[in-house]
Structure formats: structure tokens, C-alpha cells
């Protein structure tokens, strides 16, 4: 299995509080992603990174920010959490070329905003 660790695995927070989710990889892959999964919507891309300090918005980036200061870490921050951000968040990584040219997913973070 690809070495991807998401933390925390579960989090309950209150509306208006900041929340940071962490994704850590040991594969040295260039690309890292944050997706959210909601019933009826499949997986939607929030932000992705194509290198250290290089990030781009996805389909549903409003209300989220990201940072990547090291190859192995990709942080997702909800500056002021809202109930609509209750979701399962998946981190993924991808290499380029060959067998690594696909997404490898972390175990997910269940976030509840009350």
C-alpha cells in the first residue's frame, strides 16, 4: 500500500472554528490532492498540488485553503468551518508515468461541523 497518512481520522468541531487536516506521504510523489465525498456528488476536487509551494484550485475550493511546504505534507485548512463542510475528506497522491500514474488514496477523515 502507498504510504499515505491522514490525520485526524475523525473530527467534530463547531461552526466558525478553524480546522486543519493533514496529509503525509512517504512515496515522494509529486502530486497531492484533497477531495471531499458527499452522497450524490461522488468525489469533488478541492485543491491539488503539483509541487512544493505549487497549488491550484479544484471544483469546490471556496472556503478552503491549502499549503505544501514540503514534498511529503499537504495541509487543508477550513478557515471558518460551516455545516456545509461536513463531509468525508480524502487525500490522494499520484506519480507521473508507469505504474504510479494513478491516484493512491488515504483512509479518509470524517469531519462533522455542528
Amino acid at each position, binding site marked *: 500500500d502507498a504510504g499515505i497518512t491522514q490525520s485526524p481520522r475523525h473530527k467534530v468541531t463547531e461552526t466558525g472554528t478553524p480546522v486543519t487536516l493533514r496529509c503525509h506521504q512517504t512515496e515522494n510523489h509529486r502530486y497531492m490532492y484533497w477531495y471531499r465525498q458527499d452522497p450524490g456528488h461522488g468525489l469533488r476536487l478541492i485543491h491539488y498540488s503539483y509541487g512544493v509551494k505549487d497549488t491550484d484550485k479544484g471544483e469546490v475550493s471556496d472556503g478552503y485553503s491549502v499549503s505544501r511546504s514540503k514534498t511529503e505534507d499537504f495541509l487543508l485548512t477550513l478557515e471558518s468551518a460551516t455545516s456545509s463542510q461536513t463531509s468525508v475528506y*480524502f487525500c490522494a497522491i499520484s506519480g507521473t508515468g508507469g505504474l504510479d500514474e494513478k491516484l493512491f488514496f488515504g483512509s479518509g477523515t470524517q469531519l462533522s461541523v455542528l
Partner: protein
Amino acid sequence: ELKVEQNPLFLSMQEGKNYTIYCNYSTTSDRLYWYRQDPGKSLESLFVLLSNGAVKQEGRLMASLDTKARLSTLHITAAVHDLSATYFCAVDGRKGTYKYIFGTGTRLKVLA
């Protein structure tokens, strides 16, 4: 804006039957990916299709890609209960960017 549409969204089928899941996309990407997700679990890669006409098979699942029609199919042959899961297709949103956009998923239930 890239659209990736799957149908059907839900599929209930008997063991031993055949069926096909469709994935349509709106971009000119020539790369398409299929993933499987078991309930409460993460996603795992099934197939990587990297060119027009590509066909991949594993067990009872076969995936194909027609880039001219912007269509991929996932065919299930003689379904068994263990294939019950949600299946997603994904496309590289802008060619060469590795910005993967997913379809809404097809939830498959195989009845014994």
C-alpha cells in the same frame, strides 16, 4: 468546465448476470481511470486506460476507452456478490495536468 457523468447511478443485479457501467466525459482527455470503493472504505485503483481503444481486464471486470466518443465502459461478466461496491471513473481534467475529476459513481449491488 469538465463534466464526468456515470450511469446508472445505482445498479442492482442478480449473480451470474452481465451488465455495463458507462462513463461519459466532456474534455478531450485520452486518459481515464476506474476506481472501486467498498462501503466505509477508501478508494482503490482498478484500471488505467491511457489511449484510444485501450482495453483492460481483471477477473470479471473489463474496461475500455473510446476517446473519440469520450466514453469509457466497465463491463461486468457473470457478477458475484464480492463485486458489490461503488465504482468511479476519473479523467485528467486538463491534459497533462494530472488534475483528476471524478464522476458521481455507480453503486452496484449484486444479489445472491
